[in-house]
């Protein structure tokens, strides 16, 4: 017996790169609903490339292999279609958009996703209620709604804003790209708290990180180590602790 949608995400021999340089050299990874996967690795290993390719950044080129999302070929879809189908990327470097308020941006995104699913646009006042409730999750002040998207935000504010977007858009598959980088311990706790509050049995999370410290707060079910564009080791959460103790070199040597 075969079930078509066996995995939420099924990546097979994925190769991808940028500007004719191959970065991902054959990734295999499967993710089920309810799971949290950590993707770790040294700088330049391809962690961020994997996140960007899954979200559909046109700057990256897919060179081979496949990725299916709920049984559907993912890599041919436009980024906005992926988002409408429930994929969310929390950016390592959130983009500043002066002139567009956070509130307008969030409501546009929320409504576009609803429209793509054949649902009605939300009433602006109802949306305000929704967003104010979600802002509590990441301890954001409502004044941030009237500021331009990420413009003049501190590093911590930008990352919290990413998690706020995630809380509003309620993705099925969230990919957090180095969300911990540049965060102090308080901001890290707030961001991780937000992510944990959004965990449900029917959604999954990929946490891309260099360091183990975020994983103290967002506890993964699986840890994968990426090196030179390949997954060189997979294990449980104890693997992250081992990496924290021993660094990456012993795995690079083994690879």
């Amino acid at each position, binding site marked *: 017996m075969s079930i078509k949608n066996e995995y939420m995400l099924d990546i097979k021999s994925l190769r991808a790169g940028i500007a004719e340089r191959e970065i991902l050299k054959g990734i295999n990874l499967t993710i089920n609903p309810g799971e949290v996967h950590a993707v770790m690795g040294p700088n330049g290993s391809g962690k961020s490339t994997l996140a960007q390719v899954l*979200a*559909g*950044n*046109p*700057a990256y080129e897919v060179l081979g292999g496949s990725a299916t999302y709920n049984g559907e070929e993912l890599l041919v879809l*436009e*980024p*906005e279609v*992926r*988002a*409408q189908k429930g994929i*969310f*990327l929390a*950016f390592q470097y*959130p*983009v500043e*958009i*002066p*002139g*567009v308020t956070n509130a*307008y*941006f969030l409501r*546009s*995104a929320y409504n*576009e*996703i609803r429209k*793509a699913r054949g649902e009605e646009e939300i009433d602006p006042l109802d949306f305000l209620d929704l967003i104010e409730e979600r802002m509590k999750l990441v301890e954001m002040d409502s004044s941030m709604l009237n500021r*331009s998207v990420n413009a003049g935000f501190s590093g911590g504010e930008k990352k919290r804003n990413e998690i706020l*977007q995630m809380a509003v*858009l309620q993705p099925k598959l969230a990919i957090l790209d180095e969300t911990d980088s540049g965060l102090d311990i308080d901001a890290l706790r707030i961001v991780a708290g937000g992510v944990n509050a959004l965990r449900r049995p029917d959604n999954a999370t990929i946490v891309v990180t260099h360091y183990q410290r975020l994983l103290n707060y967002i506890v993964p079910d699986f840890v994968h180590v990426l090196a030179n564009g390949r997954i060189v080791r997979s294990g449980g959460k104890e693997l992250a602790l081992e990496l924290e103790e021993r660094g990456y070199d012993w795995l690079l040597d083994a690879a």
Partner: protein
Amino acid sequence: MTDAVLTQAPDSPEVERVGAPIPHATRDARAAEYVGQFGEFARGQEPMWLGAQRRAAIESFATLGFPTTSNEDWHFTSVAALLERTYVPVATASEALSARDIARFQFEGDWQTLVFLNGHFVGQLSQIESGLKVYAGPMSDALSDEARARIVERHFGGLADTRTHAFTALNSAFSGDGAFIHVAADTVAPRNVHLLFVSDDAAEGALVSPRNAIVLEHHAEATVMESYVALGNANYLTNAVTEVYVGDGARLRHYKIQRESINAYHVGSWYANQGRACTYEAFSFAIGADMSRTNIATLLDGEGSHVSLDGLYLVNGDQTVDHQTSVIHAKESCTSHELYKGVLDGDSHAVFNGKVYVHPEAQKTDGKQSNNNLLLSEGARVDTKPQLEIYADDVKCTHGATIGPVDSTALFYLKSRGIGPSIAIRLLTYAFAAEVLEELTIPAVRDELERLAFERFAVGA
């Protein structure tokens, strides 16, 4: 927000000329037709001095002729299209305008509107302000009062350059009605003044030559909006001139909205003279006309004054939009801030030429000038030329220009949140334009221009 590149080095000697060259014979023959029709140009009763100014102006125009692209100020904009016919002033006023026709061009709030249709004042749709301290009404009415006519005479033609600017000479010869606004010393005009120049289908082939003067005595304040709008798609030529006197300590907000017929040509020239410690805020918003040209020149002729020159142009199809600004710092401690932004789609063409000239005695000058352009298509083209000429040694002046497409990183960010490309590009375009609209200090005007800007790119992209 864009990866900016300066494509046009200032004063580069070899630059491509735009448009087909106009044969000299055609150009001269066309100019001669305008000179020829001056004899028949019907003018009602008007003062002797005005007739003398007209005759001097037509002589100057006969000498100058229409500009060619070898004229430095017309290097990138060809007037060939408007030389295909001879435009003729509309002799009689049309009665065909109703309040309902113009309702959508009005602003929220307390405005006094002066309506002109195809060059003629429409009294029943207008409100004349005629008090002891403030006058705002049509030039024709101002000249009918002897005392007021003397104030007009002292200012009319005092700033407009008919010796070197052919279109200004042409306006001065054929000038029709326009507005005269006079605010006495230490007085604030009670209402914002809206000059609404309407062209309808009867404007087909018309030469419309509005002529305005705004005079603010010392410590006076006023807001004046010039709107150029069309009911229909007629082919006509608007050639407007406004002379602006900003007295010591006075403050004038002076805006233009150019939304002419898509088949029309528009040339609008503002000549300003600023006294001491005064403020002149000039804003130009341009979305209409097949070809439009806006000239704004100000002379900072008193210490400690400020001028802001801002603008936004949004064009597509085959439109050409050209802005030429000139700021002359003649006295110490003046500031000039200039921001022009443009969004271009289709095969449209934008020209920006900004001159800042600092006299040797204008120490402590603070001048800032930028022109930023967003290109939404491969076919769009921008020629930008910010220029500084500085002859004082203790000044702070900067200038720059950018031309670039929508930022691909920002576009991906929006798409990754489920927003499709057409809405994403519209949002980024709007955000790009919003920065300059924030300079507008009257909320009703800012809101209206934001709406027009957003609407402009609602389709396509």
